[in-house]
């Protein structure tokens, strides 16, 4: 048994033994946890990953005449300013208000540029009051002339996080990066055995007031992060999926641009790569054993991001040794893996923190309150207006056609029923293609007579049990006007069109009085 005070004394005397979490795995394997607890004082961890729930409070100082800012833009990115007169909060994922720039330059990039010491354009407006008469302002600020620039991240450092795969037949763009179709790749984000909260899985040492490495400066854990979850299933003592989180605070004026980066996940949004390292005091042999966790012992579930639902199906259970090897095997096929967080930087951070402690520049702090280790699980947000499913929508009676039908007949049928799309099916009502009035016009112009020569064979479909909102997004994405509805046993059940959906929305809005 050791105390943090004793460890700090050893740090001051230059006698503390500090190792990284990667080194600790080896040490405990060789000497056992009891011996390691005697020998080792501090284990350093590290991670450098995309953490969307990040941002910063900035205080600009007062102008003359003064302004009570109600709208502020930093390099074109809106910051929240419903806080007194000259305070604002810039969030990492807010996109630029300039449409051509959008997610390519967001709040995360503003934060990086501030830390780099660059000048940032500040545009602000207000309604004007007796004491704050100024209503508009345009100037430049930088890290040196801001009164305060405090990074405050509501949810960082997920304890573990599911890896992503895509079982659909089109590429999707997610916060887990680009996911190739038909399980073309896997992306994962945790630093595994180096990751801070996986080395203290029951929060025996980390809590409010724990001093940490944050983006190259000293920072603090100020409590559990939002969505902190203690009720996730565990294997080998660590959660198998996203669980504990941290709320962090640090002074941007002290930060080093090497350990923070604004980035953009294509077609998703901007995000902040945060460099973070937590020292874990080895107070007893149980803590020593926990910090010895290896990549191999940390389970990571690979989930299907092709399902745009809250709970995604698990495709496979893997571990970080496998994931980091470059490929995993699923159903006999080698699938390449991509980390999304930088393991190189994570190691660098663990080593940097180790050298800070070795040099006596960084003492450990005693947390005033440890993080909750039980009884905390986030609730989902229920939408009061129930989502309507595809099979609940009233659609026109199903009319289909078969591939050998004559184009003239098909045209007549479309006009008679005033429809623009006709699914082409075989004798079992299985979908073969789709034909639209445009295809028919095209066929007539080119002198084609058989349907199978003009129908579109690659069809975007809707499943019966999908929410209509998901279909609306699909219609938008593929720039189409209607999709066949397909049942569980792959039969065509009807058509859903953009018109059906807008009719539904109108009715819904009328009812809600929007």
């Amino acid at each position, binding site marked *: 048994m050791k105390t943090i005070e004793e460890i700090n004394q050893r740090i001051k005397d230059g006698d503390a033994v500090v190792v990284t979490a990667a080194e600790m795995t080896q040490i405990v394997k060789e000497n056992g946890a009891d011996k390691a607890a005697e020998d080792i004082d501090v284990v350093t961890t590290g991670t450098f990953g995309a953490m969307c729930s990040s941002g910063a409070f900035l205080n600009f100082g007062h102008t003359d005449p003064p302004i009570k800012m109600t709208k502020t833009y930093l390099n074109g990115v809106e910051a929240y300013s419903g806080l007194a007169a000259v305070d604002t909060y810039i969030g990492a994922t807010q996109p630029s208000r300039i449409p051509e720039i959008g997610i390519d330059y967001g709040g995360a990039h503003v934060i990086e540029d501030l830390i780099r010491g660059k000048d940032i354009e500040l545009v602000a407006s207000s309604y004007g009051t007796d004491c704050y008469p100024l209503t508009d302002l345009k100037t430049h600020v930088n890290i040196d002339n801001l009164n305060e620039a405090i990074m405050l991240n509501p949810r960082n450092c997920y304890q573990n996080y599911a890896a992503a795969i895509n079982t659909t037949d089109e590429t999707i763009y997610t916060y887990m990066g680009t996911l190739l179709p038909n399980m073309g790749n896997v992306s994962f984000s945790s630093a595994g055995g180096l990751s801070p909260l996986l080395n203290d899985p029951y929060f025996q040492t980390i809590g409010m007031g724990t001093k940490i490495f944050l983006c190259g400066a000293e920072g603090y854990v100020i409590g559990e992060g939002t969505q902190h979850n203690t009720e996730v299933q565990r294997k080998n003592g660590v959660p198998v999926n996203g669980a504990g989180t941290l709320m962090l605070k640090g002074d941007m004026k002290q930060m080093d641009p090497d350990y923070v980066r604004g980035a953009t996940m294509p077609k998703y949004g901007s*995000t902040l790569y945060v460099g973070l390292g937590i020292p874990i005091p080895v107070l007893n042999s149980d803590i020593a054993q926990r910090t010895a966790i290896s990549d191999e012992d940390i389970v990571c579930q690979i989930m299907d991001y092709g399902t745009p639902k809250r709970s995604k199906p698990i495709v496979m259970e893997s571990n970080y040794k496998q994931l980091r090897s470059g490929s995993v095997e699923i159903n006999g096929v080698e699938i390449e893996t991509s980390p999304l967080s930088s393991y190189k930087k994570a190691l660098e951070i663990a080593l940097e923190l180790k050298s800070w402690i070795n040099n006596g520049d960084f003492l450990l702090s005693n947390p005033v309150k440890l993080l909750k280790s039980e009884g905390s699980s986030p609730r989902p947000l229920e939408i009061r207006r129930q989502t309507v499913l595809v099979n609940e929508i009233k659609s026109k009676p199903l009319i289909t056609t078969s591939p050998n039908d004559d184009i003239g007949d098909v045209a007549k049928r479309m006009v008679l029923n005033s429809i623009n799309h006709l699914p082409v099916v075989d004798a079992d009502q299985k979908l073969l293609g789709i034909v639209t009035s445009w295809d028919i016009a095209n066929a007539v112009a080119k002198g084609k007579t058989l349907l199978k020569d003009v129908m579109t064979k690659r069809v975007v479909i809707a499943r019966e049990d999908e929410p209509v909102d998901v279909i609306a997004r699909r219609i938008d994405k593929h720039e189409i006007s209607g999709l066949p509805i397909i049942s569980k046993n792959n039969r065509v059940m009807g058509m859903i069109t953009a018109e059906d959906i807008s009719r539904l929305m109108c009715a819904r809005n009328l009812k809600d009085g929007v």
Partner: protein
Amino acid sequence: MKAWLKFSPKMVNQAVITDLIKNYDVSFNILRADINPKGGKMLIEISGSEAEKGIEYIEKAGIDLSPVNRVVKKDTDLCIDCGACVSLCPVKAISVEKDWTVDVNDKECVGCKLCTYSCPTKAIKVVE
């Protein structure tokens, strides 16, 4: 060297490539191909002691050959070695080194630009 070969419709059925490999000391790799009865194009890599002569032969046979002077470049200041690009590359031109640095191999690259598009820090560029 790498080059695009453009076939006119009448060339498609001729055995130029077979003859090339039979008659010259070259090794020949097809990196990408898009050929149909109406002609098409093919991205090849050709090397070996008689590569120059082989190229002459291809051109004489009436195939339009345009060398590719494209380089894929990773800006090391921008790159954070996250590895997001690694699993996207269709030809395994991107790899993770022993020290966890992400490395892009220009020789293997076929210029699909998937990595360029997906890199969160826009660190990879393909320059023609």
